[in-house]
Structure formats: structure tokens, C-alpha cells
């Protein structure tokens, strides 16, 4: 007997030959069409859709009433150890973060409150998004010599690659604030300056 797969393969080959190199982009589409053509016929009972609708409503209501009850019980302080829903109640309940996750940057301080950063511009140089802009100035302590007069980090451009942290010889910039929600109303307010990076 003729192997249907073999036949299909030949069909495809012919198709590829005709359509040139970019046809692979359509392979997934063709696969879906193939599956649809070969799917099982629905029985009469199934084709009324009643069983599917009912089972769907059942599942939704089950979770709805379970969560509703649990939320009410939680508010009165009962059954706190059973979570009321499978999702995290963000922003009240933040998701636990992995220890090494790269989150929003901060600039470290010395004991005297000046930035630990010495404006070596390693991070500015390595940053693939070019979102760091440092201007250097004299540090009052001659043993430190140099510090940033301004340290601008445009989070709107940052790709969170963490290169800046890795390259810093002073461990002055870290991405460990655990803050992920840098949403703002304007692009300008996504630009963090030295003060914001050191304090927030």
C-alpha cells in the first residue's frame, strides 16, 4: 500500500522546489492545515457543544467559588495558609525573585556618603545600549581622586544585560534592588540621575 507520509513528503519536496528558499517559513502553517484535515469527526452529541459548555462553566465556577470563599475567609483571618488563587496578587504580593536576578540598578555609597563609583567609565564603555553617561570630577579625598559629577542611566534604553555590573572595578554599580517596575508616564522620567540611583 502507498505510504501517505511518503506521498506527503514528495508533495512537500515539489512545493519546496517550486517556491524557493523562503518557503520554510510556511512549514508550520502547512503542518497545522494537515492536522486539521485529518482530525476526528465529532459525534452528534458532541457537535451540539452542550457537554463542552457545561464542563467549561463547571471549571470556571469551581475556581470562582473556591477563591471567593477563601478570599472572604482570609479577610477574617482564617485559613491563611491555603492560597486563595494560583496567581501572585501583584503588586501586594510580589513574586519571589531568584537571588541573582538582574533588577534595577543602584549606585553604592562610601561611608562618607560619596559615591563609590570613581567614574572610570568602564560601564559606559561596555554598555551595549549606550545608556550610561558619566561626567567626572575631582573627589575631595585625594586618595580617591575621581568621582562622577553626574551619572545618567537611561532605563528606557537599558537592556538589563548586567555588563555594567560585571565590568565595574569598584563594585559601585549593582543590579540588586529587586525592583522590576520602572514604569513611568514619560520617557524623561525613565532617565535616572546620580541622586536617584544612589537613593531610590
Amino acid at each position, binding site marked *: 500500500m502507498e505510504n501517505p507520509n511518503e506521498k506527503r513528503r514528495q508533495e512537500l519536496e515539489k512545493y519546496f522546489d517550486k517556491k524557493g528558499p523562503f518557503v520554510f517559513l510556511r512549514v508550520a502553517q502547512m503542518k497545522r492545515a494537515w492536522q486539521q484535515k485529518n482530525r476526528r469527526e465529532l459525534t452528534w452529541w458532541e457537535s451540539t457543544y452542550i457537554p463542552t459548555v457545561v464542563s467549561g462553566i463547571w471549571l470556571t465556577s469551581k475556581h470562582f467559588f473556591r477563591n471567593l470563599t477563601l478570599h472572604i475567609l482570609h479577610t477574617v483571618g482564617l485559613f491563611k495558609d491555603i492560597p486563595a488563587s494560583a496567581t501572585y496578587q501583584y503588586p501586594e504580593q510580589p513574586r519571589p525573585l531568584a537571588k541573582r536576578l538582574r533588577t534595577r540598578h543602584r549606585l553604592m555609597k562610601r561611608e562618607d556618603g560619596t559615591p563609590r563609583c*570613581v*567614574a*572610570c*567609565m*568602564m560601564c*559606559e*564603555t561596555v554598555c551595549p545600549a549606550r545608556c550610561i*553617561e*558619566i*561626567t*567626572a*570630577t*575631582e573627589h575631595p579625598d*585625594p*586618595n*580617591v*581622586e*575621581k568621582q562622577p559629577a553626574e551619572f*545618567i542611566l537611561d532605563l528606557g534604553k537599558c537592556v538589563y544585560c548586567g555588563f555594567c555590573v560585571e565590568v565595574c*572595578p*569598584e563594585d559601585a554599580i549593582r543590579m540588586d534592588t529587586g525592583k522590576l517596575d520602572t514604569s513611568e508616564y514619560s520617557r524623561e522620567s525613565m532617565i535616572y540621575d546620580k541622586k536617584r540611583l544612589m537613593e531610590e
Partner: protein
Amino acid sequence: MPKLTIDGKEIEVPSKTTIIQAAEKLGIVIPRYCYHPALPVSGNCRICMVEVEKQPKLQIACYTMVANGMIVKTNSPKVLEARKTVLEFLLVNHPLDCPVCDQAGECKLQDYYMEHGQYDSRLDDTKVKKEKKAFSIGPTVMLDQERCILCTRCVRFTDNITRTNEFGVFNRGDHSQLDVYPGKQLDNNYSGNVVDICPVGALTDKDFRFKCRVWYLDKTKSVCPGCSMGCNITVEWDKSRPHQDKKTRVMRLKPRVNPDVNDHWMCDTGRYDYHFIDKNRILTPQQGDNLISWDQAIDTMAQTIKPLKDSGHLNKIGILASAQLTNEDLFLIRKLFKDTLNGSQIDFRVPQSLGASDDFLLKADRNPNTAGADLILQPAEDADLRDIIQKARNGGLDILYVFGHDLVKLFGKNTVEEISKNVKLFIFQGSNVNETCGYAHLILPSAVYAEKDGTFINSQHRVQRIWPAFTPLGESKGDWEILSLLSAKIGAPISYPNSEEIFDDIASSLALFAEMSYEKIGDQGMMLWY
């Protein structure tokens, strides 16, 4: 002439050549700290050690003279080991300052460590610190003794080149440190050069301090416009990081080696005179207080010049050209105002702008192209700007076209006020705002030397090329481009696609420039024919 073999390559060099020089001729660069081609040999750093066959110990390449039949190895295991050891010694007490050190990126300690060092530190003790970190030793230079490797290049420079003897090495052995003599300051006019020759970051430039990291810099060859010596320089600029140094483009000037002109050096007057490139520039054409477009500006000029041209009253045009202009600019002035509008009064010689000078590089004439202007414009002898100014004051001129001169500074306010009243069109064309602008009827922004392609002729009559580092700021244009636009409007078009073609035209029309071209001038310049 002795013949020797270095790394398997044979070479014949004059006797009394050192191994390091012979190797350089073969393209082999032996590491060096204390050796500098323009300074006497000192032989104290020992990084240049090489293996010479039949000699029991390694020899320093910077001091060992070549001999016939010598076989030198610059890369044998013994040599590499020696370099590593020398570096280890040099770095024993060297501070970990690279992040704050302005030399980082062009530091020979860093370079050789990456090339030859790469050892794990064996130092358990804490590094010995000097009493103070970087401190000022003069108006332009900072010294950090901890970073100094005591190569004495700077000492030899002040002893032998400037003969001002400011530096010395004090104390002995482990306690030796470099300093200026008590009560002395490094304040000669060549002090910036010690920063260039210091192989590490011990001597750094105050003007460049913390401004920019050196790896951001682009470099363009040029010629210093500070005086008629025409020292060869490199304009070091940064456009990719505009936040550095308040959006200015040029970060510093460095001398470029040209044995016939400035060797390795340049003076501080020229070195620090670059701020005008980005500051106080004229950005758009102006008529009185109104900003206008180039078209309007050129139209205004043409409307005044054309009637004079048609009626033949060309002696009512006065041109104050400048020796700051390139030969190409001057050639267009010559073509337009001497050939086409024959009869215009042209001069460029300022009566009293002589500055300080010395017997080394700095010349009293603070213009880079006096020789060029003289040759191209050929003004009448024993005359200068004053005759034209006098004429303008008395109402003898309809047009006074000034290229960059600050007339207020030269002739006083009253004179310029009178000129402004008596001349129909007083044009100021220049790069920077000065007091004269306030009296000019028409102000045209022109490019500075770092934005121009062209040539200067120095006081030795050497034609030298400058290259454009970046495009002119704002709407400013090269001087010859402005003249070319003007010539088209008055119906005598002189047009060139670029300054190279202008130079070719100069070369074919002026005998002294015969057979010259940009290619032949190259980056070392070419003497005029005499």
C-alpha cells in the same frame, strides 16, 4: 657598516646605531620605557633587554651598539622571562589606579603587562604608598609619584631639550622619587611635552584631567595654527560621547612627529589654544541683528559688488585677508578679487600682532600661513592693513570684507565705528564672535582649521597639509566655499569640487608650487621650490 641579524632577519646599519634602532628599521619594536628617540639614552628601566649570541647576559637594546656579525634575539624565552620579571618589579609598589588614571588606555605599563606580564601577583605585603597622591607641579601638569616608574624621561627632557632643569630624582634606592626641585615649578612653555613622553600616568595634563577617556578619542592629523612654525599635531576629538566636557568636540592636541619641523614636541601656547574650536562660535549668517540664510547673505553681498563691477569702480572694494586662511582660501581670494575684480585692495599683514617667541619652536608671528598669504596674494611691499583701514574710514570704500581680524583690538573702537558708518557694506567673515562683529553689517560664519581641508606654509617655507576632523559647526562653511558661492552670484563663477582641485590649480599656476599635490605633500609636508 656592520651587518647583524635580528630575529633571523639580516640588516646593515651605520656603526654607532643601537640595537633598538636597528630593530626598528626591521619593523621589530622592542619594548621600552626610558628610551626615547629624541632624548639621550639612560638605560635604567631594563625592559628592553635582548639576547645577544655569545654574550653571557642579556643586553639592553637601547644602549648596546650594533657590531658586525651580531646575532640578536628579541623574543627568546630568556628575553620574555626577563621582561616579565622587570614588569613584576615595576609593579611591586605601583598603585591600582587604572580606573582613575588618565593614562589608562595609552599606558605602556598596561600594554606591556597585557603583552608580557600576565603573572599572578606574588606580593603578600601591602604596597608602599607615597606621602601624597597627585599634586600640581605647575600651571599645566599634575604629578603622581606613586605611578612614576623613574624612567627619567621627563628629567632628561627638561635637562636637554628645554634646559630648564625643573625635575630631579630625589633620595636613593627604594625611596627614590621624582619631584621638581624645591621652590621650582614646571612652568616653561614646553611643559605639556613631559605628559606625552611619560610612559605611564605619573605626569598628567591638567587641561585634559578627567575630561574624557582616551579610548573614546578619534584622531585627525593637522598642523598647529598657533604660530608660523606650523608644528605637526594630531587633533584628538570625541563626538560619539557628547556629554563629555560639555558637548565640546576637541579634547586635546598632541604633537605629531616630524623631524624637520617640530620633531616630537609642541609648545604649550599652541597645545592649549583649541578651545575656540567649540566655544564662542558664529553659527549662522547675520545681517545686523537678524539671522539670515546663506542665500540672503550672498545676495546682499552680490548686490553691492555687482554695480561696482559693472561701473568699474573696483578700487572701492577692500579685502582684509588673513594669514590664518589656508592656501586654498587665499587662492580663491586671489582669483576673485585680483583676477576677476581686478583693482580691489587686498592686504593681510597686521601691523602689531607679534607675540612672545623663543629659539625653539614658538615664533612671534602667530599666523600659520603668513608665507602662503605672501606668495599667493603678493601684496605691495611696505604696506599693511592700515592703508585699507584709512581708506575705509575716510569713506573711500564701498565694501570692506574682513576675514577673521578683530579690528577693534587692532585699531580701537572709534576707528571701527567710523568704518561701520562710512562703508556701505562691512562684512565680517570669521569663526568666532569678537567685538568687531558688533559693528559689521554682515556676519558670515566660517569653519575653523580643524574643520577644513587645505594647506599651510610655515616659516621654513614647507607646505603642510591639514585634514578636516569633523564637519563645520552650525551653518558655518569653509572660506573658499563662501567665496565660490559669491563668485557664482556676481556672474564670474569660480567653482571647485574640493580643496584638492584648488591645490592642483595652485600648483599649475604658481611656479613655486610646481608639481606639488596633496599626495606628495603627505603628512610630513614638502618644501617649496626655490
